[in-house]
């Protein structure tokens, strides 16, 4: 049993130093405020600055393994993740889930045409999965793609598409066969600049606009832009969905207890510093345990995956664990702040300029999106433990 990260050999010190210099030289200044979660700039200037930033990294050879077909140097990659992570800036634009799909199911041409520009920030991607009537029940999606010669003609409406307002390409699921359920679904690459694509940004309860509705009205997609085989879209998508859940489950709450200590020290409860209140201390202790368990669950899941011994419930378990912990932490932090907990971004008295309040509001993105936690519990019970499946239909 071992969770030691192998030390990065000293010979990489130069690589790291060079990268740090590069970051200092190229890090963009944004008008955009950084918030919790995967958020989307509201100004084109910020998008351009981010594209420039990602492009400069790529051109300088700082490239992410998730977009590369070749093997990468593991140590360099770790340094890259560490140092770029520390900037607090995104180093992937849009939703990169399609990268995994292209690697697993794409043709060599598709890979060559799309992976490098995605890595370089030249192509921003969005996903076109959910529909107004196909959320939890994604397999019931109704967007149609009808073959007409060597193009598919797509009609339908998508929603919850991240970055769509800035995207160049979309990772689309549409129904090519007139059968209900997963069997008729095909995955496509969609040119977001094509005629018939209409993107309408959606404002969320956070007050920010991180998602979009996308209307597809007779959009023509060449048959060469099918990912995998016709009718196999559900298989393609499920790999992406599981990756997404694993990613959410890998969300960091690493130093959450220390952060809560900071909040508890800065606020009073019944006339004393809140950190002196045993009920506060008990809660911080419990959050500390849960955030440490999140990391340990991550170790377990990663090990099982590496050994090919993954259980179907691994991703749902970590996704639920992270998203509920993250929500409860935010709620607790607000409670610690007393009335000040009601102040948001822009108020001079708000704690950390409203970061906790934003975290509280945005937390629902993780309990709902990527398959709601209700769907996750179904998956655990039915597909994980083999309990009887819910019936489709029949009960009104």
């Amino acid at each position, binding site marked *: *049993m*071992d969770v030691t990260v192998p030390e990065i050999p000293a010979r990489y010190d130069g690589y790291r130093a060079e990268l740090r210099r590069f970051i200092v030289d190229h890090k963009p200044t944004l008008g955009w405020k950084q918030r919790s979660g995967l958020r989307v700039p509201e100004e084109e200037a910020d998008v351009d600055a981010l594209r420039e930033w990602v492009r400069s990294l790529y051109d300088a050879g700082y490239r992410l393994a998730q977009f590369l077909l070749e093997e990468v140097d593991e140590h360099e990659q770790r340094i890259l993740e560490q140092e770029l992570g520390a900037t607090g800036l995104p180093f992937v634009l849009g939703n990169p889930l399609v990268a995994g799909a292209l690697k697993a199911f794409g043709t060599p041409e598709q890979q060559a045409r799309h992976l490098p520009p995605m890595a370089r920030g030249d192509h921003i991607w969005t996903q076109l999965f959910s529909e107004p009537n196909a959320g939890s029940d994604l397999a019931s999606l109704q967007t149609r793609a009808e073959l007409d010669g060597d193009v598919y003609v797509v009609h339908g409406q998508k929603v919850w598409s991240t970055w769509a307002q800035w995207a160049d390409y979309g990772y689309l699921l549409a129904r090519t066969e007139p059968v209900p359920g997963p069997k008729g679904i095909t995955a496509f690459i969609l040119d977001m600049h094509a005629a018939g694509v209409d993107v309408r940004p959606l404002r969320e309860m956070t007050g920010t606009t991180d998602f979009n509705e996308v209307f597809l009205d007779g959009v023509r997609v060449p048959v060469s832009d099918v990912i995998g085989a016709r009718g196999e879209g559900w298989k393609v998508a499920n790999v992406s969905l599981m990756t997404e859940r694993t990613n959410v489950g890998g969300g960091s709450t690493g130093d959450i207890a220390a952060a809560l200590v900071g909040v508890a020290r800065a606020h009073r409860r019944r006339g004393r510093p809140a950190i002196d209140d045993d009920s506060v201390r008990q809660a911080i202790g419990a959050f500390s345990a849960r955030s440490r368990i999140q990391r340990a669950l991550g*170790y377990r899941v990663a090990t099982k995956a590496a050994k090919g011994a993954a259980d179907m419930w691994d991703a749902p378990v970590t996704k639920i664990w992270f998203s509920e912990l993250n929500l409860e932490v935010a709620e607790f932090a607000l409670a610690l702040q007393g009335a000040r907990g009601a102040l948001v971004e822009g108020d001079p008295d708000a704690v950390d300029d409203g970061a906790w309040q934003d975290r509280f509001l945005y937390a629902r993105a993780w309990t709902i999106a990527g398959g709601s936690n209700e769907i996750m519990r179904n998956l655990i019970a039915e597909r994980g433990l083999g*309990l009887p499946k819910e019936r489709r239909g029949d009960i009104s």
Partner: protein
Amino acid sequence: MVPNPQLGFFGRDRGGSRAVNFAFNADQELLRESTRRYLADHHPLSALRPVLEAPEVFDRDAWRLAAGLGWTAMLVPPEHDGGSVTDQPLVDLVVLGEELGRVLHPGPFVPTNVVADAVSRWGSDAQRKAVLPPLARGEQVAAWCLTADGSVEPGSCEVRAERRGDALVLEGVARYVHGATVADLFLVLARMPDGLVHVLVPATADGVGVRLQQCLDLTRRFGVVTLERVEVDAADVLDHDAGAVLERAVEVATVLQAAEAVGAADFLFHATVAYLQDRVQFGRTIASFQAIKHRVADLLLTLEAMRAAAHYAALALNDRFDDRPAAVSTAGSYAGDGFAFLCGESLQLHGGVGFTWEHDVHLFVRRAKTSQALYGDPSWHRERLCALAEVDAAQRDA
């Protein structure tokens, strides 16, 4: 859709995931298999049924046979008849603890290992030679006299020790001592005028009295140990800082108890799922009801979390990670509550049949409620985690 915390503004804190190997190795898996088989043959839970209400539930001969397979030898050095399966004895012990937990084994696995560990680490040569071989071989059993109220608070230690020449005279009481009624040897925490000490006291010493306690847990026996002018040799004191000895002992006990909880919870979880798939009401198995399914999912979540916490704690304790104290208290706080939660839910999901004396689920409920209070209850561990978070916060600010 797809708000991805990993690719957003959260730093990712398991950057080492590619290097993780967070699983038992082949030798440990073998140990698990052979232990499970041994217990199924020799110590099934059903064997406890006839003695649930008997004053004694411990079978010394059976223990000698079984513990001789290494149950109490892992933390003892080879020269004293000890030895572990791998170079991670605490991880090996977690495998054993889980298997013993599955059958609610009554044996003093935790205290005997705690005492063996303390003597192995801090005993004098004479102490090690005298104490360790019989413990490691399962020929003797040790118990741990901690406090008068079962807590790990030094302030609750009610045994006083006074030096009289070369002798030490002990007077006082310790309660909730697992295995007290069968122990050959006690490790006694005692208060001297200048601080705490740990003393090895043979059960046969004059003035040692043991009274069996009536306990919720029907599968273990606890006792009150009274010491009336018990005279021991000054050489029976463990010559090491008592605070460090106590901390280590609590940590070892916490991890082993968490392992036992994981094993017991794992068994009960699967038994519960099987029951739900079997029991028919309204013409359907009750496992087909979604409200039940979601509760089962939550139980699995609890179980997986308990397991991750216990395994990481064992590793951190064995390999002396920087985050060892927090890792141990994570297991201590979560495993205890998680086990109790899982037992309560299992009982509820079993319905009326689970409420009967004849059904085993109450034995788990009783075990869980008892374990929750021992070796640092969950609230003690949470307080410790908060104090550690304060240290982290101070370092971050510095």
